[in-house]
């Protein structure tokens, strides 16, 4: 019986995921075709003579009706062939495996910063509701929300890189450190640590810290606001009063009992902001010359390079669905009731 229902729910999940992807692909495909940009231009440039242009147009299958183009694409995707990017002339799948680790690295460090500062800040604000601590956190959050990331990134570079020399500048690695380590995961911090190349690690870390802090500031603003409101709600509950009556120290009441109960809804908040960062952030990537997914998808879209755009979209879809599922699993671990 339980095996049956498990199997049934499994089938349902697979079906939903498949439908989501189909919808995602269809919409992206249609948008790509509506954009008034000639994809052949990206492939051959503006100077190509007529016969070269025509040959490439046929090669790209652009003479066929729209539904047929989509069908051809879909059947190829199902066999694991995502096609080649017109712009980079690589297989889309190779391109994505090249750019995604850069984004993963940035997003993970950013989320770590956002969580490790955002949650304590939110808790402190909730405990000191209405006092100066609360105001400070509120203003910090507001500033984080309202300053354009582009400007913040440039100012950060100007101050911490150009003036103070505390961090490294735009780019993912210093020139002297490039190509020194074997790419295993593509995440430089991880690869260098695995291979014990600590100088490379240090260089990569000093490159990632500023863009990650800029992005982390945004998730921090969001996470601290959410933590604050969740906490205020919890602190009003009766079990908190009971805990206090029992004579537990205030620190224990706040950080163990109240925060422990807030973690479950907070997980969703963190997961969503992480997923958002994993899509790649075009502006931050541009300012910091960070070769990530956001720049890749944007460049591809602006060249009507549909294979690359669709590949990137699938990647984003996988991230979102993956993180959602992961959150579900974590829920069960954190919340004993959700069995």
């Amino acid at each position, binding site marked *: 019986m339980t095996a049956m229902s498990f199997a049934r729910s499994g089938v349902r999940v697979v079906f939903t995921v498949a439908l989501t992807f189909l919808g995602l692909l269809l919409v992206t495909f249609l948008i790509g075709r509506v954009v008034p940009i000639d994809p052949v231009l990206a492939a051959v440039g503006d100077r190509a003579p007529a016969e070269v242009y025509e040959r490439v147009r046929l090669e790209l299958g652009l003479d066929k009706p729209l539904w047929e183009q989509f069908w051809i694409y879909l059947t190829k995707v199902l066999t694991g062939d995502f096609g080649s990017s017109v712009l980079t002339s690589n297989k889309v799948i190779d391109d994505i495996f090249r750019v995604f680790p850069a984004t993963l690295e940035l997003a993970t460090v950013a989320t770590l910063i956002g969580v490790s500062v955002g949650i304590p800040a939110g808790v402190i604000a909730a405990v000191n509701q209405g006092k100066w601590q609360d105001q400070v956190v509120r203003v910090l959050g507001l500033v984080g929300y309202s300053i354009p990331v582009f400007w913040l990134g440039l100012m950060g570079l100007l101050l911490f890189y150009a003036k103070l020399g505390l961090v490294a500048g735009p780019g993912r690695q210093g020139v002297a450190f490039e190509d020194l380590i074997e790419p295993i995961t593509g995440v430089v911090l991880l690869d260098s640590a695995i291979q014990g190349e600590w100088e490379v690690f240090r260089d990569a870390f000093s490159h990632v810290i500023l863009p990650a802090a800029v992005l982390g500031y945004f998730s921090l603003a969001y996470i601290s606001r959410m933590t604050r409101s969740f906490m205020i709600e919890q602190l009003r509950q009766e079990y908190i009063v009971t805990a206090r009556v029992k004579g537990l120290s205030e620190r224990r009441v706040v950080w163990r009992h109240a925060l422990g109960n807030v973690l479950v809804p907070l997980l969703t908040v963190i997961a969503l902001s992480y997923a958002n960062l994993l899509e790649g952030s075009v502006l931050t990537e*541009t300012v910091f*010359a960070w070769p990530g997914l956001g720049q890749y998808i944007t460049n591809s879209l602006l060249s009507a390079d549909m294979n690359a755009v669709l590949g990137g979209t699938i990647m984003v879809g996988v991230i979102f669905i993956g993180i959602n599922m992961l959150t579900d699993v974590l829920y069960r671990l954190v919340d004993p009731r959700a069995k």
Partner: protein
Amino acid sequence: MIETFHFGRRAALLAGVAAIAFAYVVPASAQTPKDTVVMAKQIDDIISMDPGESFEFSGSEAVTNIYDRLIRFDLADVSKLYGSLAESWSVGADGKTYTIKLKPGIKFHSGNPVTSEDVVYSFTRAVTLNKSPGFILTQFGFNKDNVKDRIKAVDATTVTMTVEKPFAPTFFYYCLTSTVASILDSKLVKANEKDGDFGNAWLKTNSAGSGPYKLVSWKASESYTLQANDAWFRGKPANKRVVVRHVSEPASQRLLLEKGDVDFARNLTKDQLEAIRKNDAVQVMQGRKGSILYLGLNQKNANLKKPEVREALKWLTDYDALEANIVRGTYVQHQAFLPVGFLGALSDRPYKYDVAKAKALLAKAGLADGFSVTMDTRNNSPIIDIAQALQAQWGKAGVKLEIIPGDGRQTLTKYRARNHDIYIGAWGPDYQDPHTNAETFAINENNAEDAKSKTLAWRNAWDIPEMTKKTSALVLEKDAKKREAGYLEIQKEHQKTSPFVIMFQQVEVVAHRKGVEGFILGPSFDNNFYYNIAKK
């Protein structure tokens, strides 16, 4: 008491950890390695490192530093050709058969000698693949079926090439100086061929040349790295390694340069260039490039079709103000379709801002109150800024200009379909011969929608059978002096009657660290050379 003590200890611990982390983050050194040249540049236009395929500005620059060609031209005086791999070249009495003799003893990076077989292979390959730049060779009548009869190795160091018609020899020679005519190591490329692709897939990210550098890696929209070829036949390059990194944001390029993390910043804007002049550690160098900034007036538009209106708009453009306020340092004024640096370039500038004259012309055209017109404008600097300035200038004579902003490829798509009123854009020559620009600006074989040849004249629906004939005749003119005079004459007429408001010629400005000298800036991107760059 105990509580505060605890707190204090924890705080001290935290501060300690933070200090260590902090010290750890601080970058080790801001200097680039002494034998490595580092550039920050926008290189996301590169689609391939294969000389038979590469046709973008950034790609040509990389390829030209990797591969040698048969002949090159003197950067100071384009009319002088010199042999690179070729020792001598000549044309037979029929005007169609060229004989090229190679210098002996030159080797590719692999150690293979450069032979006539490699020349034949390289040309056969470019003609057969016929990618974007292929037409530079196929316009001489070569195609994949006849190329083996027309380009032949006579002996190990001699090649003959037979062209279709008795073209002007200078035309053929200048085309041999272009990227697509690079000489490849045929043995190495053949070893990497796949399914008859002439090694195209492999050469996208690898190299098989004889030039000053070999390609170490190219990562699209990220970076390319070149390694010096110490055995280069013209002498060992002055540096060991060149790393060019894609930094799309000019403000970031500036920071990297001022900080010393890069030696060159290639895409600084006018404001940034002015700002860095205050920095003693940074210098600026410049060189004229062939790119021309112009307006194309679509002749399908009834108003723009009137000759008086075309002329009026040329008088309504304030070239001085545009240069002073928007493009100073990156463009200079120029009003003819051949850029300075080309055989037969016309440097006259008959037009200046004259509202009264323009008004009179408009009145003559029956448009005394002006008219409304749109302009498709690429959404980036300086194009959009120029468009906005024109809007104000033209308004003085009642011409209401509506700007339609768009992404580069979007406006281009519309332009190519002839759906614009006015297009503002740049045109760079494809090779160093005057025919490249003359063809596109002054030839329109067939003005019909389905025309085979879609030149800029065609894109603006400018029907010019007479000028087409005159311009086409010049590619057969044997006498270089007569040829030059012919182009001058056509440009003068073009200046008066054409639907092109030619405004500026590009100047490439490169900012670099003081003490990093020797970058050679030629008249086109495939004449920018790295081999002389040395650090003091």
